[in-house]
């Protein structure tokens, strides 16, 4: 079937049916529909999005009215499900439906909060010929925000009427340049991203690059503070912590760039700032997986698990109280601002012996050394390796990841992405292995904290026993997955790729680099 593709148009005005009909007159055609009539009160809606504008960045708007929850993908489709009866913040709280599915895929953990109020009117216009036969349909959504208007149109071509489709597309194309709803409606959509683009110069001194990287990550930290204080969703804390950890890691990994005493002080500062958040994040991870835990154990262990989760929730609430107080404190504000200030001017940052090394050469050398360190650890991992060694491998992999991600702007993005993919695959299993280990320890602590004579003590003990057994089993399976993923991580291909990208001296001389084999290599 030779059906033309649907076309989308976005106008910063309503659709002017009268004007279009004047243009269609010669072709003996008319456009019919009620589009752009003033919307009635029931169609007032709220544009919703996450802090990182997940919906908008996916090319869509999410609008909730009294009756509908609508996702308008401006290069795709309009998806609708009935508006939920109850207040909701997270996609998982929505009743089953196509919009819920899309939002779960898009952002399962983030809260959806109001971005702006609009009125919405939807219609399907028909392009009719002189026999009043429909030759093309046009779906329309018009949003009003005060005096601002944005109209989204999508043609639905019909078989056998290609010419009519071309005709109406040509007319709509001339109605104006495509305008995004933020522009047309003056909507303020968050430009936050947890992974901002960092611009680095290959030849700039390492100290300058370090400052750029640290400043960028610290901005991410600061951006997450209001949402964390309000406790909108668990991602605020997570990303606040990740950005600070990245700063800490980069400072340590860029060895010799910052003066030793400055680095020591910064390490202490970060430790102090982050210590209160450890418990909160740990409990968040549990609470987010609540359903998974219940699914892990038999139904008779569920009441005990309920007690456990009440305890975990209490911990979380207490920890949040501390974190909130810390973030709102003058000390924190003073401390974080002074850290930010320290990196504002690279020349003022107390320098170490490597401060003036050219960034690319310096970073490449660090990555390669770290990769080789990981390989050395990796090749000795077997089914009998102690847990501690696997944890060490996890930490080294994490460092390698932060290092590569920080230095990414200096190298070929495509190649780096490919290597990171292999690393991420391995890290996922290492992370799960560690989580299961930590979780078993936390469970044991919970049991110790709960008085033996308290009500439900037996139920709690039983459920913790069942859960620990399941976690141990999962951990064993994860260990196997780590071993499987490791071999690909230090395979000759991956090594070659690392060398090609980061071994600048050899690449420059176009000499083949000896590879690390699984039997070991003293050069590593």
């Amino acid at each position: 079937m030779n059906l033309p593709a649907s076309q989308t148009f976005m106008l910063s005005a309503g659709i002017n049916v009268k004007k279009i009909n004047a243009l269609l007159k010669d072709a003996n055609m008319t456009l019919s529909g009620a589009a752009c009539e003033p919307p009635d009160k029931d169609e007032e809606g709220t544009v919703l999005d996450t802090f990182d504008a997940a919906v908008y960045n996916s090319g869509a708007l999410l609008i909730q009215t009294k009756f509908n929850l609508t996702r308008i993908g401006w290069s795709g489709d309009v998806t609708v499900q009935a508006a939920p009866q109850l207040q909701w913040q997270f996609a998982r709280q929505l009743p089953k439906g196509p919009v819920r599915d899309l939002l779960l895929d898009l952002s399962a953990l983030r809260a959806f909060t109001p971005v702006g109020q609009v009125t919405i009117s939807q219609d399907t216009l028909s392009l009719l010929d002189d026999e009043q036969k429909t030759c093309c349909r046009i779906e329309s959504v018009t949003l009003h925000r005060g005096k601002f208007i944005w109209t989204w149109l999508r043609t639905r071509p019909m078989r056998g009427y290609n010419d009519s489709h071309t005709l109406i597309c040509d007319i709509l194309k001339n109605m104006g340049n495509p305008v995004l709803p933020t522009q047309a409606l003056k909507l303020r959509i968050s430009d936050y991203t947890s992974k901002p683009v960092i611009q680095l110069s290959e030849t700039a001194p390492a100290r300058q690059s370090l400052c750029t990287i640290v400043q960028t990550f610290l901005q991410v930290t600061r951006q997450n503070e209001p949402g964390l204080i309000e406790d909108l969703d668990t991602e605020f804390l997570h990303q606040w912590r990740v950005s600070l950890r990245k700063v800490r890691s980069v400072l340590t990994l860029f060895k010799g760039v910052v003066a030793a005493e400055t680095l020591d002080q910064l390490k202490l500062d970060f430790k102090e700032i982050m210590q209160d958040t450890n418990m909160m994040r740990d409990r968040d991870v549990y609470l987010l997986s609540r359903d998974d835990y219940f699914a892990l154990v038999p139904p008779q262990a569920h009441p005990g698990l309920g007690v456990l989760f009440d305890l975990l929730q209490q911990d979380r609430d207490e920890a949040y109280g501390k974190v909130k107080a810390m973030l709102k404190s003058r000390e924190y504000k003073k401390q974080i601002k002074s850290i930010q200030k320290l990196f504002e001017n690279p020349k003022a940052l107390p320098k170490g012996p490597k401060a003036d090394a050219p960034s690319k050469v310096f970073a490449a050398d660090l990555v390669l050394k770290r990769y080789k360190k990981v390989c050395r650890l990796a090749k000795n991992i077997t089914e009998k390796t102690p847990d501690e060694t696997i944890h060490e491998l996890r930490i080294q992999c994490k460092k390698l990841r932060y290092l590569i991600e920080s230095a990414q702007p200096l190298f070929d993005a495509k190649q780096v992405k490919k290597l990171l993919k292999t690393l991420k695959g391995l890290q996922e299993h290492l992370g799960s292995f560690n989580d299961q280990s930590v979780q078993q320890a936390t469970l044991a602590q919970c049991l110790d904290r709960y008085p033996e004579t308290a009500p439900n003590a037996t139920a709690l003990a039983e459920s913790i026993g069942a859960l620990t057994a399941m976690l141990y089993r999962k951990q064993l399976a994860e260990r196997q997955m780590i071993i499987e993923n490791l071999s690909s991580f230090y395979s000759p291909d991956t090594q070659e790729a690392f060398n090609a990208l980061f071994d600048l001296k050899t690449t420059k001389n176009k000499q083949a680099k000896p590879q690390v084999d699984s039997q070991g290599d003293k050069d590593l």
Partner: protein
Amino acid sequence: MKLIACYSNKGGVGKTATSVNLAYASALSGSRTLLCDLDPQGASGFYFRVKPSKKLKNNTFFEDTKKFADAIRESDYENLDLLPANMSFRDFDIFLSRMKKSRSRLNKVLKPVDGEYDVVILDCPPNISLLSENVFKVADRIVVPVIPTTLSQRTLEQLYAFFKQQGYKSSKIFPFFSMVQQSKSLHVETMEEIRGEHEQVMKTWIPFSTHIERMGVYRAPALTYAGKEGAVAAYEQLWQEVQS
């Protein structure tokens, strides 16, 4: 793909009204449906407001599969497409007679759209011709509207005789009574007589109805504007029976 022909060698018995409403009922039930107007008068197309196909002239219908597929038009109703006729369809027999395997050409014509539709309904012109023989050969079922009058009864008998003589499967023939006026004793008696003679006469019958006649005014299947009227709703029932 099921091929249902709506055929009668007598004119004015309600073939097009039946084709149009059966096609609509089929589409409504979720089947991807193509109504193929083989009658040069193009009445099916008229009812759907679809203009006659300009490019499907002379022998292109039988020989140019691309042009055939390009001539198909989406109707205003979901799942329902239409192949409109034009006046050149009146010469089908001339083109067919010049072709090899002239009695099975229709099969070849419909092959390219095989995967696109679940049901194809053929609105046939009222004659016994080479085209009709193509229809007899290729159709899975042939739905024959019969007004319960002497003349209609006679043409039905002629059809059965022709099938027997040419060796076509008369088990494909499914007559049903159309434009029935129960107030007329002739209609009632004739219906009884025909039912007595032919086992495959369908249970559903379509009463004479002004709502059906008004299809020409509304230019839409009667089921879209008078679906609750008994006479019109009978088409939906008829479609159920045709399928069973």
